[in-house]
């Protein structure tokens, strides 16, 4: 699965994208975020407060109970601040 990070999630974790092998027990966005926290202290720090971690699956905003699968493009980012 391809994971993208933007803005301060990117700078805190230190990479803009990574490809991960999704464990079978991870089935939704919430489960994915919890699992990503275990990958490194930087991941744990960046993802600590889920209220400011927004998620898009295949380029659409989704809630934490949205399903995820190995073929998805998942992006994690803070609340947007454009315009």
């Amino acid at each position: 699965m391809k994971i993208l990070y933007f803005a301060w999630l990117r700078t805190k974790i230190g990479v803009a994208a990574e490809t991960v092998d999704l464990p079978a027990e991870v089935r939704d966005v919430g489960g994915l975020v919890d699992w990503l926290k275990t990958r490194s202290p930087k991941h744990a720090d960046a993802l600590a407060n889920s209220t400011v971690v927004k998620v898009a699956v295949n380029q659409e905003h989704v809630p934490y109970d949205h399903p995820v699968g190995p073929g998805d493009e998942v992006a994690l980012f803070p609340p947007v601040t454009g315009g």
Partner: protein
Amino acid sequence: MTVKVQREDFDVGAELAAMTGGKTGIGGVTLFVGLVRDMAGGEAVSAMTLEHYPGMTEKELEAIEAEARQRWPLDDALIIHRHGRLEPGDRIVLVATASAHRQAAFESCHFLIDWLKTRAPFWKLEATPDGERWVEAKDSDDDAAARWAKPA
């Protein structure tokens, strides 16, 4: 109906001319131009870098525009949003809507910029005397967008 995401500046007069040229049913066009300010939260800002999510940005802007076209009778709508490094006074975004009636043009233009600010995947990094900092989302922007929520 057009969405553009680009590094380059845009020409508001040329965009307006392209939107209205040869058309005689448009009664009014409302435009909003967002600019980089030199101050934010009491601190001087010397530059701003706009990061975005290529692919999703365009899809999201197109979805926002489609929502506006559903809600108001529009002859045309345009969103141009820049990314990359900008300086105070630089243009960031242009939203323009054309309609037979000015009320529809005003409301849809206001809606587009309010929704864009809470849904389009852009993030601002400000350069200040204390270093770089990511701009935090404002509650006032959420409130502005919530005004446009449809009754259930």
